[in-house]
């Protein structure tokens, strides 16, 4: 896989550090209790600043999925592969890759695992539960 450099920024640093430790981290608003993903410095639901960090159990359901046959250049060697949107049980949605080549469908239960992304950094992927 091509080595693409992804910058780490202050919003994402704790998230990527969590991924390196096998933890799926998200933020949770202390004011309105919204689960927040992607991580950011403000609650997008109520506007409260500096939401707390939390750790997801990594279980959820597939909200949408596509199998990519015509891939961007950096991913061409891996095609076909499947990309998911997953609704985590804690109440947030995120994009993830499907680890392996199982057939999956919208509504299927999945759990998180961590695999090396295109820049060599561990990133959350999902496997059928």
């Amino acid at each position: 896989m091509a080595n693409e450099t992804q910058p780490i920024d202050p919003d994402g640093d704790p998230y990527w550090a969590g991924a390196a430790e096998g933890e799926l981290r998200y933020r949770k608003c202390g004011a309105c209790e919204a689960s927040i993903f992607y991580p950011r410095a403000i609650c997008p639901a109520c506007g409260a600043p500096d939401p707390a960090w939390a750790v997801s159990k990594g279980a959820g359901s597939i909200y949408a999925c596509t199998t990519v046959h015509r891939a961007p250049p950096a991913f061409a060697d891996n095609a076909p592969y499947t990309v998911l949107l997953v609704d985590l049980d804690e109440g947030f949605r995120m994009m993830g890759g499907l680890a392996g080549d199982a057939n999956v469908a919208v509504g299927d239960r999945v759990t998180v695992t961590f695999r090396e992304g295109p820049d060599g950094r561990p990133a959350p992927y999902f496997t059928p539960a």
Partner: protein
Amino acid sequence: MSLKKACAIAGVAESRLGVVPDSTVLTLQAEAFAAALADAGLEKSDVDGILVSGAWGRLPQLQIAEYLGVQPSYADSTSVGGASFEFHLGHAAAAIQAGLCKVAVILYGSTQRSKQDKYIFQIRNDLGYQYEAPYGLPTPVGAYALAASRHFAEYGTTSEQLADLAVSTRAWAGLNPKAYRRDPLTRDEVLDSGMIASPLHRLDCCLFTDGGGAVVVVSPDVARTLDKPPVWLLGQGESLSHAQISEMPDLTVTPAAKSGKRAFAMAGVTHDQIDVTEIYDSFTITVLLTLESLGFCKPGEGGAFLANGRTGPGGEFPLNTNGGGLSYCHPGQYGIFLIIEAVRQLRGECDARQVADAVIALISGTGGVLSSNSTCILGVE
């Protein structure tokens, strides 16, 4: 305050379309600019407003105004993807109503095909996109494929239904001498065209062409002095939803739901008064989701709505009568061509593809990954 009849469209034009190797983004816009002004019966010296969107250049507004030799008193460069020009139409109307300008020109140009400017496919792996970048989702088709997968799962929508839209749109293109792809198309040809990102096939996707366009928007006072009948803006609404697909609240409901409500309310017209519709067709699924969000059919009924040639020539719901982004042209940000075709239909200038007695048209621009939408309703009375 309403924008109803705050402005009229007085002139429209394309530049050369398709593959135009001996061009730049500036030359194509200059071509369209001159042709649209001639269509309006106006001079360059009349122009006091410029609205432009594009991913080219460091300061596109300054570059295009300088190149054209215009020093506008009003300028706007709202950039929300392919819908930008429908946003611009509303912004030009507001500026004209406020007395900030009288003759505003909306412009777009792209050399993405011949110059291989693949900017629209490049995701910057920073900020919010760092959480999508590791998974190789092609942009924008992968995002639309995710939305299609959700609609298929939730409502039983099928690839055959989407293919029927591509077939109908191609049939319109066959009636448009300027369309890039004009050969008749069959449902099986769409389904056999190869999967790009399931469930979207190659022929569910728009063209990849060069091209430019221009739209001349004028004050009511100016409109009444011109030879061609004015095409009035009756209603406009706009809405932003998200930047990246994982942040879209509901993959089956687009921001057209909000922009459409505002446009219909402002225009004071109902769905059954719309004679012709020009709806952004970056992908077949874009049209299906937009029709549902605008209320032309109920959620989940879009597939049946599009099936069996209903939107094609002779069908009861004339849609994308120039052949659309799927078959006519698509130079990256298609929305300006929706306006051009709607105006020509309302003026009765469309020859073989003319919709009989068209007096009210609806335009829906979509930008980003179902991220932005502006609905415009135009009329000749």
